[in-house]
């Protein structure tokens, strides 16, 4: 019994030791000694690339990482400079950022919000990253964005398409270059009305989670505004792999258009299933049955193979664009890696450049200074034409591409063709648009 007393006293003692540590700031430097989180003091600055390296989106993550490495190379003055040469801002000199050499660390999001936050935290706490970027899903983007807000670093979102990222879950330290559900709907609707007529009955299959909800809502309201009718909207589980029981009843409902609000593996499977059912060979209400995929990505198109042929969708960017910026980027990416970049690679590359440029213009890595430099900033030459980083919600406004699956692809990367470049005016919305309501940016956080 005396032994326990020893252990209890021992506990108290060690507890007191820990307590005394807190009370001795002369030995311990509290982090508040820095002006902001992870202020780079040496000759280099570290950026954190948080991309899925394991799990179903690993290939997309790998492409994002390639783009980041290319961007770092260009920022440090290596390679052919890529889009630095076409970027409207000439602040960056090719000598790093503010003269500091750019280094990077990587983390694995596993496409899970918990894991993504863990890897982001590790890059912030252990590796001293001053900015976090990347990701290939909205859940991850929103989670990491909130984390960066708390930690006091800048978050430059990668591939995230949900309205919420710059809508109800927006944060002052987070910025998104990628387009969103609303823009997809707004860009697609006129093209669809043009191609398929204004008298259509649509059947939505929607992934049963946040991104699915916002995409369905956006596409629905835009197409209904064009005169389409929505016959039904059915939610499908994230873990679903065989969509036959959802697709089989579509024809019975009298719908003549199927809209697949799915992404990734869900989209590959639902589209494959729908095409397999021969829906596109059918005639309903005297019209050819059609399928629409609001958000396309190249990896998804690759997974769905020949099934994408002739199917409309939207993307943020495509390598076949012929503006100078896109051409420069495709050239340096293609030369380095042997194949053209995906839209995920593009947005990640651009986000890195935009961040570096903002720091350069602000003259500081302090998140609030960077945020201020990005807010309301207008630029060009990065592949999407004239673009605005809107101050109210930190969303980029730029042209949106409506694409369609190519009938005769010449290679495994040549799967989509651009149908229309929807001008930015058509996809712009008011900051308080109902689809983006709730939530507030808050104030920027420099951290401790």
């Amino acid at each position: 019994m005396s032994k326990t007393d020893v252990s209890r006293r021992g506990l108290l003692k060690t507890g007191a030791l820990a307590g005394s540590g807190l009370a001795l700031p002369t030995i311990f430097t509290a982090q508040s000694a820095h002006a902001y989180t992870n202020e780079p003091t040496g000759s280099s600055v570290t950026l954190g690339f948080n991309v899925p390296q394991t799990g179903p989106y690993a290939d997309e993550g790998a492409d994002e990482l390639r783009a980041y490495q290319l961007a770092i190379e260009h920022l440090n003055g290596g390679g052919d400079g890529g889009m630095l040469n076409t970027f409207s801002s000439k602040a960056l000199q090719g000598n790093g950022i503010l003269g500091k050499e750019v280094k990077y660390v990587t983390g694995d999001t596993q496409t899970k919000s918990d894991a993504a936050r863990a890897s982001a935290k590790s890059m912030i706490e252990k590796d001293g990253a001053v900015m976090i970027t990347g990701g290939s899903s909205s859940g991850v983007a929103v989670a990491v964005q909130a984390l960066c807000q708390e930690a006091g670093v800048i978050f430059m979102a990668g591939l995230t398409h949900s309205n919420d990222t710059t809508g109800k879950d927006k944060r002052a330290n987070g910025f998104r270059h990628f387009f969103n559900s609303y823009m997809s709907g707004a860009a697609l609707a006129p093209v669809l009305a043009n191609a398929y007529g204004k008298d259509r009955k649509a059947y939505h299959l929607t992934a049963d989670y946040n991104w699915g909800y916002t995409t369905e809502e956006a596409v629905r309201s835009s197409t209904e505004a064009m005169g389409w009718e929505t016959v039904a909207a059915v939610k499908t589980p994230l873990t679903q792999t065989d969509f036959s029981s959802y697709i089989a009843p579509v024809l019975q409902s009298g719908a003549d258009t199927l809209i697949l609000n799915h992404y990734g593996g869900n989209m590959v499977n639902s589209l494959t299933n729908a095409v397999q059912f021969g829906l596109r060979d059918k005639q309903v209400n005297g019209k050819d049955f059609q399928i629409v995929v609001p958000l396309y990505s190249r990896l998804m198109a690759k997974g769905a193979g020949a099934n994408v042929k002739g199917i409309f969708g939207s993307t943020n960017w495509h390598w076949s664009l012929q503006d100078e910026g896109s051409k420069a980027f495709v050239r340096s990416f293609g030369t380095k890696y042997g194949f053209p970049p995906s839209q995920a690679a593009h947005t990640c590359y651009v986000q890195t450049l935009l961040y570096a440029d903002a720091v350069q213009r602000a003259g500081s890595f302090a998140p609030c200074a960077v945020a201020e430099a990005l807010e309301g900033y207008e630029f060009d030459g990065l592949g999407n034409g004239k673009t605005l980083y809107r101050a109210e919600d930190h969303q980029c406004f730029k042209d949106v591409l409506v694409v369609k699956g190519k009938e005769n692809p010449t290679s495994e990367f040549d799967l989509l063709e651009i149908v229309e470049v929807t001008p930015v005016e058509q996809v712009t919305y008011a900051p308080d648009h109902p689809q983006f309501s709730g939530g507030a940016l808050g104030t920027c956080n420099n951290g401790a």
Partner: protein
Amino acid sequence: MDAIILQILNGLDKGSAYALIALGLTLIFGTLGVVNFAHGALFMIGAFCAVTLSRILTLSHTVIDETKTDFLGNPLKVDVPYVHDIFGIAAGNAIIDWAVPLAILFAIPVMILVGVVMERGLIKHFYKRPHADQILVTFGLAIVLQEVIKYFYGANPIPTPAPAAFKGSFDFGAAIGFDPNLIIYPYWRIIYFLFATLIIGGVFAFLQFTTFGMVVRAGMADRETVGLLGINIDKRFTIMFGIAAAVAGLAGVMYTPINSPNYHMGMDFLVLSFVVVVVGGMGSLPGAVLAGFLLGVLESFASMREVIDIIPGINQIIIYLVAIIILLTRPRGLMGRKGVMED
């Protein structure tokens, strides 16, 4: 009415896939007494047999087409499959087109080999270990197998279409007097259903009518007695494992046109197939098949929008809900024997 017929049809089709996977799982459990968490991985490897064969068939050499350019402005490199050179373009394309059915022939020896190696190399040492250990080691194996596949084939799904001849769907409704287009079902899924029934029937016939099958059934009933009779049951069980692996593999091969295969498809099916086996009753072959079809049909009904409108989210949980209800009301599943897996 038409909607219900359609979902029954659909449920039978889904169920045939579940039944096929659960059948192999039960076969292994029933004969060897091993809970094989790597069974989903066998299904996945089967699917990748189809991918591999189609890759082999499309092995190419590059020809430079000077008239076209690639995305960087260089002359376009065109891949020409060797089968084009050997059989001519038309015949070559036909062979590539039929890669999935051809993969059946390719997969059978591969899967039997995989199964036998797995049994001799690993499972054999776990007959006497607790079920928990078996679950854990095969779970580890499943992780390893899927990571190996991912290393070689990437994380993205790989499209593996059915032959062009099976494109489109059959109009059941029109055949039985409904309006056209009300009850349609894809040809390939009908083929899958028939294929599954064939395999299930084949396995049952094999166990019922061959001497080998009789010994195995006796072994499933009472392993020790058969051992006492001096029959080399272990060797037969190895073969049985190979057969179970082949069944899982073939299920995978034929599944590729339905869903593009990816490295985690085995894990996706794993939980579900265990639910099927447990609902059917551990160790009962007819139970596994029955439960497969039952869950397939119920899942189809639960995904009807009329049902979801009444009970939101039911499509998310139906499988688990059924599993819980059955296990609580029928402790040994639908057709399970007493005393199996209760320690």
